[in-house]
């Protein structure tokens, strides 16, 4: 902040009425302002935590207590969680979500990085065409395609399989662009050296470029995993077998089944949230840096 002892006389000092008094007043005003900022921010942050806290609070109550709208839990119990684990197929849903999201993340990283490598490093006649086609893909909102994709999966006999959920999610145009941008920014020396040693394109891709691309791989993998896990509409249509439902679809499908057993409802919500909170806590840095990187792209 400003150091009045070396500042030239200026409007600022005129404001505060002369040298000597200014430093303390400024610092005090700064501190007060900072404290207010902190207070406001903490208030909002606590406000933001209320819904999740409320859900956990309700989940720990017996069902009868949930109609009394209060934070106090008279008879805390884990029964709601037990009932949800026993009566719903939520563990199946965890398994299904995990398999699908992993398939999608792995598939996306592989196909997108391969394609991006070609676009970044290779010259071929229809390069521009491919580039624009991929760009066009970013424009098409997925929801517009659900009807024809459903028909297609039906024709391929893939309805009610994880493939049906995962395959349409794998070709992600944005992932291609992310990898391409990253590859473009890599120095070429190692590649040139490898080529002089007689390495082919695939070897360069596998042994030189991809090891350097770990940040991009991490970002794409994590975001694809989370996005795939949270998908609702497409899995909802395609997975009609309750044993195969993903977590969001399962929760949506049994939504009304709990009736006024609000503790059970909140317990199912909390259980549904746990895997992703775990992902967040483990991969916080990557997620945050991934998003932050978008800002650079502008």
């Amino acid at each position, binding site marked *: 902040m400003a150091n009045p002892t070396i500042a030239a006389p200026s409007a600022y000092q005129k404001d505060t009425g002369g040298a000597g008094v200014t430093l303390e007043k400024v610092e005090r005003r700064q501190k007060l302002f900072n404290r207010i900022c902190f207070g406001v921010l903490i208030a909002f942050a606590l406000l933001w935590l209320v819904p999740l806290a409320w859900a956990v609070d309700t989940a720990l109550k017996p069902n009868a207590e949930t109609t009394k709208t209060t934070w106090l839990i008279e008879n805390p119990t884990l029964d709601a969680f037990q009932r949800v684990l026993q009566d719903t197929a939520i563990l199946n849903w965890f398994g299904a979500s995990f398999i699908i999201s992993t398939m999608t993340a792995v598939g996306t990283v592989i196909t997108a990085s391969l394609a991006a490598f070609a676009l970044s490093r290779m010259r071929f006649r229809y390069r521009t065409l491919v580039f624009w086609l991929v760009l066009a893909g970013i424009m098409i*909102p997925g929801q517009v395609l659900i009807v024809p994709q459903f028909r297609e999966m039906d024709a391929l006999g893939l309805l009610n399989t994880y493939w049906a959920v995962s395959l349409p999610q794998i070709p992600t145009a944005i992932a291609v662009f992310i990898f391409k941008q990253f590859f473009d920014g890599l120095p070429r020396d190692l590649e040139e050296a490898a080529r002089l040693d007689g390495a082919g*394109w695939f070897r360069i891709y596998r042994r030189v470029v991809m090891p350097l691309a770990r940040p991009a791989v991490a970002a794409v993998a994590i975001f694809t995993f989370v996005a795939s896990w949270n998908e609702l509409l497409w899995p909802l249509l395609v997975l009609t077998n309750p044993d195969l439902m993903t977590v969001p679809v399962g929760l949506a499908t049994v939504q009304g089944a709990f009736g006024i057993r609000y503790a059970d409802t*909140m317990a199912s919500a909390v259980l549904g949230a746990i895997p992703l909170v775990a992902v967040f806590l483990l991969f916080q840095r990557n997620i945050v840096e991934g998003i932050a990187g978008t800002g650079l792209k502008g």
Partner: protein
Amino acid sequence: MSTETVTPRTRPAESPPTGPAPRPHGHGRQATGFLAPFAFLYLAFIIGPAVYGLIMSFFNASLVRPGLGGFAGFGNYAEALQDADFWSSLWHTVWFTILTTPPLIALAFVFALLADRVGRGRWFFRLAFFAPYILPSAVIALIWIFMYTPELGLLEVGLAKIGIAAPAWLGDPTWAMPSLAITTIWWTIGFNFILYLAGLQDIPRELYEAAAIDGAGPWQQIRRITIPMLGRTTTLVAVLQVIASLKVFDQMYLMTSGGPNFATRSILQYVYDQGFTNFRIGYAAALSMLFFLVVLVVSAGWFALVRRQEKEV
């Protein structure tokens, strides 16, 4: 990272001639190999269905009947443009966008500003604001439906304690959309928050110090330095937000089923209703195409805006 699942067709390396590394050209065949997995899935599951959807929109296709059904020409489109429900669902979507976009930008900006200034304990604020963002819509819906429940929901009881009579939230046609908007703002603000926080950290401190020396107070610093320097970020946030709002579906489907009285039915939900509840997938395809046009127009607007901004810079 395993690459065993996919083995593109590789050709033996072109051994380079002696001397400086030549400019590579004509790698068509190898490139095809690398592009093949992506291209195959892309054409099969994105471009293909898009084309099929376009074709289907010209027919009276039914979900429970095989094939395309009777030819309808532009009939579906004509019906859509005259369909009051289509226009009202479009309006509902726009209204939702209006309700959510300004707060999601302004609040995220304010929070980021405060968090940046405060400096410490950033992990806590990140957790508080961003944790909701990674949760699936189904979890969010369960929690907020409970909070909006008449008579015993947290919001109603909480407001009653400070003497405000709460509306019927999700059951009131005027308040249902704002209720969904509040939920959405709570859910997705984290993303913008992080974006702004990163943008703020990129602004050099010297600029602030110089301004302070010149006599600028905190508000002036924000107005003259922070906001302009975050212009790019704000544009990005705004466009992402608008496009995401246009595509809104989950909240409506889970929390109000488009009600009450269809007051919250978004355009995608209308597409879903027509296609999957009423079985009219030809008509739903036509509606999808019209929706796609809207998204295209907005995206084009974004491109133009970004182009102009880059020219200014």
